[in-house]
């Protein structure tokens, strides 16, 4: 009898409370960002905040459902779940609906569902399943390639739907793979790739090439045990080739609005008049969102008191730019609170993941932390002007049923897995 009741309470309540805090506070901000007029009817289901309330209600049911399924189910059926998810992404090309230039939605009755939001959890399950297989060794090229295929299928399908933001999320799996034994050289390669690309755009190919060669020479001669001379030479040739191809890639492959975003972020444009006009047109969202955040000051203007929020100065404020509402109405204190809650949630999930006995649970938990972290980094960083504009929702906060459910499924599968850790098989 005692054991029976105990089972219900061995979920990690810290994570659940942090989750509820984010969803609740997020909803308040959706009210602010989407209300019209003076009186707010919280149950007006024609308004985004009313719909979101309904989504939250359904989320509770979803959570109960997820937690009531046997934990073993998720591991056993991960491949099937992944397969179904991929099929739903493919189906978009036949039955999809286009919203804001991206064809990522199914229209069912009056509702729209975005399968890419659910694909993250499915991919995480598949990756966890593959890595936890006893035969898998990430040091081997074959397994690296297989993992890449698992990740590339959803990434490419989503990219084809014209949803760059959701595609980039699959980069987050790098953290998982690295944790599970991906050779260090990939980390070095990733960092080098990023540094050389940015440097080539900002300072030009020649300076970048010279700097790279100098660093390689210094590195070579500072080592006591000299490796063969061939390796650094090959790296140098690759780096120089990369540096020269970055600008080509930038000029020919990227679309104009993407170029503009990068150009502003890296301050590539020098003419102040042109910068100002770009800020006003291309970066209009960012311009307004930074102003909204600034106008919050230390303590904010208060709930429903933000004039920029009420006036809908920031486009998409209840979705991708929801954090600017927090900034204006809750100020530095409220914004910092949100950042801290996210960090605590991430660290909690990370810690729980490390505590898992089964590798499947650990890898999955790691994937959950990585995906949420990536969203948190890109979304808030974008709203505050730290990184170029990439459309991506803030987990648990942004308006939208698919997003909310996608993240809830992602997180609560892990909570279920975690609850099984003590008395499991």
């Amino acid at each position, binding site marked *: 009898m005692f054991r029976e009741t105990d089972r219900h309470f061995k979920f990690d309540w810290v994570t659940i409370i942090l989750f509820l805090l984010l969803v609740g506070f997020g909803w308040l901000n959706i009210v602010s960002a989407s209300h*019209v*007029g*003076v009186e707010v009817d919280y149950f007006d289901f024609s308004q985004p905040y009313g719909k979101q309330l309904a989504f939250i209600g359904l989320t509770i049911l979803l959570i109960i459902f997820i937690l009531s399924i046997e934990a073993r189910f998720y591991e056993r059926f991960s491949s099937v779940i992944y397969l179904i998810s991929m099929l739903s992404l493919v189906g978009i090309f036949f039955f999809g609906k286009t919203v804001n230039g991206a064809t990522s939605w199914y229209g069912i009755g009056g509702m729209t569902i975005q399968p890419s939001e659910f694909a993250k959890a499915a991919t995480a399950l598949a990756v966890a399943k593959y890595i936890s297989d006893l035969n898998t060794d990430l040091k081997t090229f074959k397994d690296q390639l297989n993992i890449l295929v698992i990740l590339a299928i959803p990434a490419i399908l989503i990219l084809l739907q014209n949803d760059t933001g959701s595609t980039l999320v699959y980069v987050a799996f790098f*953290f998982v793979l*690295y*944790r599970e*034994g991906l050779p260090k050289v990939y*980390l070095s390669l990733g960092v080098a790739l990023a540094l050389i690309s940015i440097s080539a755009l900002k300072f030009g190919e020649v300076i970048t090439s010279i700097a790279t060669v100098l660093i390689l020479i210094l590195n070579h001669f500072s080592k006591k045990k000299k490796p063969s001379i061939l390796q650094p030479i090959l790296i140098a040739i690759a780096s120089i080739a990369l540096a020269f191809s970055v600008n080509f890639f930038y000029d020919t492959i990227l679309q104009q609005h993407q170029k503009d975003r990068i150009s502003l972020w890296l301050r590539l444009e020098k003419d102040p008049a042109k910068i100002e006009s770009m800020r006003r047109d291309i970066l209009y969202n960012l311009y*307004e969102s*930074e102003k909204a*955040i*600034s*106008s*919050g*000051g*230390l303590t904010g*203007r208060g709930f429903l008191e933000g*004039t*920029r929020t*009420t*006036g*809908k*100065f*920031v*486009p998409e404020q209840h979705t991708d730019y929801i954090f600017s509402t927090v*900034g204006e109405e809750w*100020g*530095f204190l409220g*914004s*910092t609170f949100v*950042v*801290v809650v*996210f*960090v605590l949630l*991430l*660290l909690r999930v*990370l810690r729980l993941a*490390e505590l898992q006995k089964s590798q499947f649970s650990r890898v999955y938990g*790691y994937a959950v*932390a*990585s995906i949420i*972290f990536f969203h*948190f*980094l890109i979304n*808030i*960083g974008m709203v*505050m002007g*730290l990184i170029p504009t990439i459309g991506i929702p803030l987990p648990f906060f942004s308006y939208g049923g698919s997003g909310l459910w996608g993240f809830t499924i992602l997180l609560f599968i892990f909570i279920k897995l975690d609850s099984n850790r003590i008395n499991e098989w």
Partner: protein
Amino acid sequence: MRQLLLFISIIFVGLLFIARLFYLQVYQGNTNNLYEDNAIRKVYDYPKRGFVYDRNGKLLVSNQPSYDVMVIPNEVKPLDTLEFCSLLKITKDQFKNTYEKAWRYSPRLPYVFLPQLSKEDYAILQEKMRKFEGFYIQKRSLRNYETTIGANVIGDIGEVNQRIINNNPYYKMGDLIGMQGIEASYEKTLRGVKGIKFIQKDRFNRDIGPYKDGKFDTLPESGKDIKTTIDATLQAYGEVLMQNKRGGIIAIEPATGEILSMVSAPTYNPNLLVGRDRSKNFTKLFRDTIAKPLFNRSLQGVYEPGSPFKLMNALVALQEGVISTEERITCYTGYRYGNRFMKCHCRSGKQNNMIDGIQESCNAYFATIYRRILDKPGDASVGIDIWSNHVKSFGLGNFLNNDLYVGQKGRIPDREYYRGIYPNTFYSTYTISNSIGQGEVATTPIQLANMVAAIANRGFYYTPHIIKEIKGETIDPNFTTPKYTSIDKRHFEPVVEGMHNVYKNGTAKYVQVPEIEICGKTGTVENFVRIDGVRTQLTDHSIFVAFAPKDDPKIAIAVFVENGYFGSRFAGKIASLMIEKYIKGETTRKDLENWILSHSLENEYAKPYSGEPFKINRGTTLQVISQEEVNELKKQLAKLDK
């Protein structure tokens, strides 16, 4: 160690975000000031500006509607410039220039694109305004001057400049403010308080409703009407008399200190400074550095007072007991001190008592008593300070602290003042010119009029002021409490008697007015200018001060006519006419009136600029103006009597 990568990344990003938030919100964050919040549209509701009446309730200044075309540059959409320009009656270049100015001022703030449209232009434009996004019409109220008089008294209103906006946040771009005269000194009373509505905007700059249901909105508070002390008829009369002359007339009611009229000649039509041509006309008036129409001669003109100042010396001498009213002083056609000589027009050997001295304006008499005043304490350094303090108690040598927008201190010297010129020895003879109102003393016409009012009151005055009544407010007590001079009441009677004799037998014998007992004093003041670096004497200024009637003074007046030669020639006549007009309401001395109307001093004023040698005073010939012009002036006078 591989576990640490994500862990460190999370902590690092968290801290980075908090630092960025701190930078955006605390370091760079702005306060929640509704006025600076560009998500809130501020719509001002301008109240009616108060009307201005004369002392008898005649309306002088009212309002007329006016329409400004405003622009908010970053809301402007491509438009048919050609049509827009032709509607506004401007050229395309003007359009471009103004638009660029507006953009430089601020892309987000309203800018006055074209001020003060006429009613006709407005009617046409109003219909089409919807087509021009970013432009709108702001209604304002402009002044409407019911008469052409008193430009220098009433003043005008104009758009605030950036300096005013910076100093006083009440005013916003395009607001109107009193610039001169009553409009400036009673700005706060007349303007009222504008109302404000806060309107929540959305990002397309559309109004989406009152901010917080209008919780912070305020209603406009109308400006208050003002009744001035000016007598419109007397003011108009004085302005006609002063046509073709330069100078000032100040008339005060001694019993209250109320200014009955304040004429400054030349004057201008106040309607010139209303509407779109204001700045053009203002520049024209401002650039006229010869006639200086914007220079208020009755308030700002600092002149040597001349003979009227002898009244002061007589009063001080009596107060200090250095002479009795009966003592006679012999005049030998002047006064000799040391090896110098001050001329007088008395016949040699004439013995003057005080009344005679004033009546004949005897220089020797006043030189004598002035020296006695200064020498009485045994040291002229002490004596001059005693003298100076008595004189200053009449309001001379200092600002009167009145409600007029401009003014000058004038100068009543004391020992400290002379320290620079005579650092060591100081004798009464050094400053002997002060005895006859020349030398270092200098006054403005309003100060002289006030001095006469104090004599008329026999020892006290009220600070001259222009405000008679503000609805629901009491007048500044400074204007309703008498200020006593340091001269005892009994000493005034002989001086008043002397002034009366000036009219009966003296220098103003020929400007008497039947049935009114006037007391007056003429003045003739030497003056000099520099022409090509040479100090050149011009024809004397003609000065006259008077009050009437003798025993129950109703009016005290000072008249100043530049280069009018001797006192009774121009100033005396004008003073008599003004007194009669005010007391009787009509003019019986038509001969004086005709003479003043038909004579001009423009030829005198042209002399210093002619570049040729010229004669002054006795050598001048009077300029008579054409009969048509005289008839024109008479027509203006006839209008007044209606």
